[in-house]
């Protein structure tokens, strides 16, 4: 557990360094905001409407398939670490595991879900 103190220190030092550089630049940079400068950038056009628009749902489908495969990869991590201590049985188990999920990918493919247009 003590090893992970390093992670905490790095997170805190990282945030600290960034805030420090923000502070340093605040001391020397100019600050002259006005309405036209603070407008959202849209190639000098007046922005029309909100930018928080509705996105296409294929983003969502890809994220869903990603979640499934990410969970699968997480199960494969302990398998990969322990495989040296196990035999052929573990290899076959893992192959079945992957095949079942590749079937899902194949299903998505055939249903045209993996098409990004």
């Amino acid at each position, binding site marked *: 557990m003590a*090893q*992970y*103190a*390093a*992670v905490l*220190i*790095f*997170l805190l*030092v*990282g945030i600290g*360094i*960034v*805030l420090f*550089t*923000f502070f340093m*630049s*605040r001391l*020397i*940079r*100019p*600050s*002259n*905001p006005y*309405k036209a*400068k*603070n*407008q*959202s*950038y*849209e190639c000098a056009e007046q*922005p029309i409407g*909100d*930018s*928080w*628009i509705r996105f296409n749902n294929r*983003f969502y489908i*890809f*994220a869903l*398939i*990603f979640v499934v*495969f*990410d969970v699968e*990869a997480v199960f*494969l*991590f302990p398998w*990969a*670490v*322990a*495989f*040296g*201590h196990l*035999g*052929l049985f573990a*290899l076959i188990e*893992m*192959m079945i595991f*992957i095949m079942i999920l590749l079937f899902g*990918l194949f299903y998505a493919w055939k249903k045209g879900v*993996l098409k*990004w247009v």
Partner: protein
Amino acid sequence: MELIGIFKYLYEQLVATGIPQVWVDLISLVASAVIIFGVLALIALFLVWWERKLSADFQQRMGPMLTGWHGLIQTVADAIKLIQKEDITPTKADRPVFFWAPIICFVAAFAVYVTVPFGEGLIVSDLNIGILYIVAITTFTVISLLMAGWGSNNKYALLGGMRSAAQVVSYEVPMIVAILSVIVFVGSLSMVDIVESQALIYQWYIFRMPFGPIAFVIFIIAATAETNRTPFDLPEAEQELVAGFNIEYSGMKFAMFFLAEFINMFTVSAIGATLFLGGWQGPFLPSWVWFLVKTFGLVFVFMWFRWTYPRLRVDQLMEFSWKFLLPLAFANLILAGWMKYSGWFNW
């Protein structure tokens, strides 16, 4: 010259002052974090200059020539300029999200270096879940890109952020599976164990025919996509999105995104060198020199890609990952498992 000797000497000096052990450890951790930040900042400055010089070479130009020898301190001048730049927050922006996005982006890139082995013994903390920790902590980058896109409240920025997230997410699974096929051979997630299992050149995982080279190529392709570099730089495509998720950022906030981008490129190269090219292992020279030589070699490959290949279309990009790279990576993992089991090339 072994760098580790210097650090050991400093640590002993710290112990000799007689302050409690907890404070000694805390001080040395904070010091190592600050030192690594300094090293990374220098590396990023160098990489920006190198990228500009290389692009100039590939296009038969000169590149920066005036500031210092062959423009060597050009990026230092750029950094000084960026510090003086006005920091603009758009009126419509979601202020807290806009403010924290560059910080999270940088910290996610920086925290990886807890467990990157720069050389023999030159590692801050050899976490027993090393490579899994790196894979996990870098996912914060995606969150920061989405935060930048949302926080800017700008159409280009949000579209760029969403595209970045979709792309990074798509290439993450092939990358993890390519890493796994190496883990099968090592039997440990610790970065030090990974390096130590490839002491001799024929033990490097890139030379373990046939799974090694395949895993290496998958890793390099996925890493290019993860770092949003050409030919996978659609989220930052200047011609259609102006600049992508960082369009509204200026001054130091922009500098943080820029720094994180170059640190990330160095990170994936360092991981590639550790997993496939034997990390710090090598004859004659000190271990950290070998590590840097291999890592910069891979950085050169990424830059070479960038100035050689044209950009992919978004549908090609997504379909390439899901329909080709992912099945290939899984087949390769099964192959690696079979090789480990049968003892083929397992020296």
